């Protein structure tokens, strides 16, 4: 039974070429890259090759600027806690936005109890941070600005380049959580002007459980994990070499195929947004019309609740994600959606449709037909829809 995956933000399939190099790596039984004998050096060479592939994807000055981690969450934790610990003699003020991922928010909750002070900037109704507000929020005490590149719930892209100019000018360290952007869009750390950038390999069809942190040379940061001298003394512990080999291959393919992937995703995106008004009525699009990822659309369908929609689409063999409070496990409306000014009821009906290079336009059409059916069924049950109908 084929399931149409429109939930790529949660998991993307491994590319066949990535699987192949990982299986080969398992069979090869690589030694520890830190060992100085022949077997160790062989392992160190493949590790270096993967590092260089990722460094090229991000346009780093040197591959040494890439530190492999266990994924986006660790990278973000490393960036925030590592900068905070290394720079607390300069100040204890950190600036973020209201729509950051929980990896950022919860890392800072930890730091607040150690005396750090956080300014969290609001986004406008379109979901973007105003760079001028970042400039205004910076004080003598500010040691770090962390603003995400693209939002995992809405796909909206932040003005990182503009913020990068400001932080450069004011000599404040700038981190961007680019977990949902790297490998999807062309990324250039020189152009962005960031000092730290978090990414995850699964975003570009590499394995889950592998990611990395770009650390611009000269950035003051402590390791999150202390121990050995792996990863240029920035992340202790024997490397997840099989995963990293997969990540390196995935990075190489992402760079090679970037243009055609983006074009394909834009076609799917356009199809969805063009046909949506012919499919259902009364919905809100939460994704920015211009500054957004090509592979993600967030819509809030009014008068119905997202988990119900997700479960009914699942019965039609279509996987999507919802940001309804009921389904997230947190039972709380998403802070991102509320930041956009959505009401609790509208936030409840939010679906995140995220497609990948393995989707076709036929998948979008199948989804739209199923969505129409599900929305009709659930609105027939909904007291809110009934009230609205009798009021008009």
């Amino acid at each position, binding site marked *: 039974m084929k399931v149409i995956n429109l939930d790529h933000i949660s998991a993307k399939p491994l590319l066949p070429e990535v699987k192949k190099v990982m299986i080969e790596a398992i069979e090869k039984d690589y030694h520890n890259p830190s060992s100085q004998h022949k077997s160790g050096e062989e392992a160190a060479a493949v590790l270096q090759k993967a590092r260089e592939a990722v460094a090229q994807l991000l346009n780093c000055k040197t591959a040494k600027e890439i530190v492999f981690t266990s994924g986006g969450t660790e990278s973000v934790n490393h960036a925030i806690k590592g900068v905070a610990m290394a720079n607390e003699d300069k100040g204890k003020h950190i600036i973020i936005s209201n729509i950051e991922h929980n990896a950022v928010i919860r890392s800072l909750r930890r730091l607040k109890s150690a005396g750090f002070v956080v300014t969290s900037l609001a986004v406008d109704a379109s979901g973007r941070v105003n760079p001028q507000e970042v400039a205004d929020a910076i004080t003598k005490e500010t040691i770090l600005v962390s603003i995400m590149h693209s939002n995992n719930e809405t796909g909206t892209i932040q003005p990182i380049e503009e913020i990068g100019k400001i932080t450069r000018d004011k000599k404040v360290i700038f981190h961007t959580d680019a977990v949902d952007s790297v490998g999807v869009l062309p990324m250039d750390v020189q152009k962005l002007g960031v000092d730290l950038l978090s990414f995850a390999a699964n975003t570009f069809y590499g394995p889950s459980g592998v990611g990395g942190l770009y650390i611009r040379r000269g950035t003051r940061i402590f390791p999150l994990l202390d121990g050995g001298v792996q990863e240029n003394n920035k992340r202790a512990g024997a490397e997840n070499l099989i995963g990293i080999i997969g990540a390196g291959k995935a990075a190489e393919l992402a760079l090679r195929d970037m243009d055609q992937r983006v074009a394909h995703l834009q076609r799917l995106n356009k199809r969805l947004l063009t046909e949506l008004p012919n499919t259902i009525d009364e919905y809100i699009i939460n994704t920015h019309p211009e500054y957004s990822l090509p592979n993600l659309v967030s819509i809030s369908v009014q008068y119905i*609740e997202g988990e*119900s929609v997700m479960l009914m689409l699942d019965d039609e063999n279509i996987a999507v994600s919802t940001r309804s409070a*009921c389904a997230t496990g947190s*039972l*709380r409306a998403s802070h991102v959606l509320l930041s956009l000014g959505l009401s*609790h009821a509208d936030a409840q009906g939010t679906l995140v449709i995220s497609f990948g290079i393995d989707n076709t336009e036929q998948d979008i059409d199948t989804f739209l037909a199923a969505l129409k059916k599900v929305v009709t069924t659930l609105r027939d049950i909904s*007291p*809110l829809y009934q009230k609205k109908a009798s009021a008009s």
Partner: protein
Amino acid sequence: MYSKTVMDHFRNPRNVGVIDDADGVGEVGNPLCGDMMTIYLKIKDEQIEDIKFQTFGCGSAIAVSSMITEIAKGKSLTEAKKITNKDVAVALEGLPKNKLHCSNLGADALQLAIQDYEDRLAGVERPQPIRKEKHEHSHGEKCYCPYCDIEIQSDITFCDACQSSLEEEH
């Protein structure tokens, strides 16, 4: 995550709809979680002759609504008044613990509808259906952290186990 019975009632909800000339209407809404449920009753000879529901909510909220209508249909008012949210959860072969707070509102809506019927008999006029805004804890009911499912005291504002801020959410 949901039992087979929950999924059956979610996929094929029983007694969906509105009774236009209902004898009693009860509405329950939980503004934090967002679930809303309305129950309509038709009463004949102190018996629930017909019952219908409308629900805005997650899978378990819809299943709970469907199940409460099945349990209550045909019951005398005396019997129906004894139905609790727990009975509904048991009939559904269990609900995820955190959903017990948000979605298990069926018996509350039923009791409000019965109260509405009795109030109307006593001559109480209402412009709007009788409505309860928030889930209140009945005596002896256990409280669980909505984030990590661990049993907690009902008056705390911070879950030690998962470090979530709870404020008014449980």
